[in-house]
């Protein structure tokens, strides 16, 4: 057929005949697929792995505190020490189910449809006792540095233990962060324990918690030990040391890092910059205030707000901590509706490179 000689470019998308044939074939093929119902399976799987419960509102509240739209400025971010803020030893082991949605209270508009609530809520006292609120969990990000996210999740044995379980088995909301070389499957293990004596903590993990199925670098292993130290101390606001044990004994984490002796938070383990902004945060148009903490050479951090095409919508610099201390930074900008990437980075001594530390968050301005 002479069609073979036809220049191929003539049959690009302006080829209505081929396009229509493809459309029809795909439609009929798709129509022949009849999906079963998996809604319950989705719910069960989602809750088993990483209960999303309350990240929603945690985000709303935490972000409302750090990100003030409309020009207002909040002072220091404070913690109201809620139900789970004290000792972490007494919560019931089966409290996990207790955080299934309680009946909506004062705000009538949020009552879930009956079908959305699995009939597992054991008691009425579950509302507050069964949820760990505003729990800081640390993740490993670029440069094997630690980054922090807040989660609000079903209690799984007290704040410290819940935080450790989240860190082992959950996943960060920010795509730049990762869990670290922990074996997700052990996050529910009864072999995990956290004990507190004064300001000092001991975390006992089963050997299976240290996932060696993929290669682990020494830097990553050290970061992951600090990830555990930061997470467990933050959960109970302890300021002392953390002793990590493997099956009750000192040992080698991932065969790379000795554990068993008390260690403290390493101030260098965290990223030089943290933006206190929930990933994917939606905000109204108006003045946007972005806050966070940083430590940079001479204190100056640079910030940029870029559009999805990479063009810069706004940029500037502001002051955070310098030398040894992390201090709060803050800047404001006004953005029209759209999706943006907020980047804050600590320049190196040349004032240009961003290798020293950076954090990025996506925001949607509506």
């Amino acid at each position, binding site marked *: 057929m002479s*069609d*073979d000689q036809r220049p*191929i470019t003539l*049959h*690009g998308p302006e080829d209505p005949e*081929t*396009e229509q*044939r*493809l*459309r029809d*074939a*795909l*439609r*009929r*093929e*798709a*129509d*022949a*697929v009849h*999906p*079963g119902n*998996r809604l319950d399976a*989705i719910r069960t799987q*989602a809750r088993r*792995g990483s209960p*999303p*419960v*309350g*990240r*929603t*509102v*945690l985000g709303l*509240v935490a972000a409302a*505190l750090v990100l003030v739209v409309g020009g207002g400025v909040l002072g*220091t971010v*404070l*913690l*109201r020490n*809620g139900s789970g803020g004290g000792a972490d030893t007494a919560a019931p082991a089966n409290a996990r189910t207790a955080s*299934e949605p309680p009946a909506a*209270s004062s*705000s009538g508009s*949020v009552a*879930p*449809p009956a079908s*959305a*609530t699995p009939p597992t809520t054991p008691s009425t006292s579950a*509302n507050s006792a069964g949820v760990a*609120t505003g729990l800081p969990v640390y993740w490993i990000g670029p440069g094997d540095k630690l980054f922090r996210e*807040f989660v*609000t999740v079903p209690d799984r044995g007290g704040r410290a233990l819940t935080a450790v379980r989240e860190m082992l088995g959950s*996943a960060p*909301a920010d795509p730049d962060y990762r869990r670290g070389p922990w074996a997700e499957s052990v996050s529910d293990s009864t072999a995990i324990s956290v004990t507190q004596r004064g300001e000092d903590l001991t975390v006992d993990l089963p050997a299976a918690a240290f996932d060696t199925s993929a290669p682990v670098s020494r830097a990553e292993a050290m970061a992951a030990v600090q990830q555990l130290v930061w997470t467990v101390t933050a959960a109970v606001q302890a*300021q002392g040391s953390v002793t990590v044990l493997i099956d009750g004994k000192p040992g080698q984490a991932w065969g790379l890092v000795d554990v068993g002796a008390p260690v*403290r*938070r390493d101030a260098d383990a965290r990223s030089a910059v943290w933006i206190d902004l929930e990933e*994917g945060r939606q905000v109204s148009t108006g003045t946007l205030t972005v806050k966070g*903490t940083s430590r940079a050479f001479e204190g100056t951090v640079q910030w940029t707000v870029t559009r999805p095409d990479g063009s810069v919508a706004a940029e500037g610099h502001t002051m955070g901590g310098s030398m040894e*201390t*992390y201090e709060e930074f803050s800047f404001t900008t006004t953005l029209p509706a759209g999706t943006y990437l907020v980047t804050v980075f600590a320049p190196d001594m040349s004032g240009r490179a961003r290798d020293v530390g950076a954090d990025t968050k996506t925001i949607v301005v509506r």
Partner: protein
Amino acid sequence: MTPDVTTMTTSRLGAPARWAAEWPENWQSVAVSRADKLLEELYEGQWARMVRLAALLLRSTDHAEEVAQDAFVQIYRRLHKFATADDAVGYLRTCVVNGVRSVQRHREVVQRLQPPPPAAPPGPEELAVRADSDRTVLAALDTLPQRQREVLVLRYWSELSGKEIAEALGISEGAVKSHTHRGVAALRAALDGQETGDE
């Protein structure tokens, strides 16, 4: 008792750490019901579409539901990012595409380990009665590179814009245009060739 407000400063370590928050009284119920409500809305609107998308991309119904289920689980864990179910659709679609790719990678490994099956026997789903013309078109689609197939399915079945396809696949709009162009051209060439051969 527990103080109303607490700050913690680990000055010794040089790292002041202060954390959240003042909570509205009913925040737990708001959170739970909002996530569930969004999930239900999203499920109702998108479940069948996403399973079918996975089936078209996989060219098989095997694993299509699993891929879609995993995508919904992922999205459920991130529902806090989205104001409405509609906002989450793009992300959901990306999860499906990525899930499909992961199944395909696995398949490639399995196929490398096993001898190829004799002369492409039809799978159960291929046994369904289907117009010859459709079978020819879909067979031609199968011969295209993966990226082109993805672009064509998203464009001509999901009816997405270039921008939406670019987002779903993590490529530029220009790349979408060129994949579409080349994909349709290659499809036409394959169809012409087949139909010539059949005559």
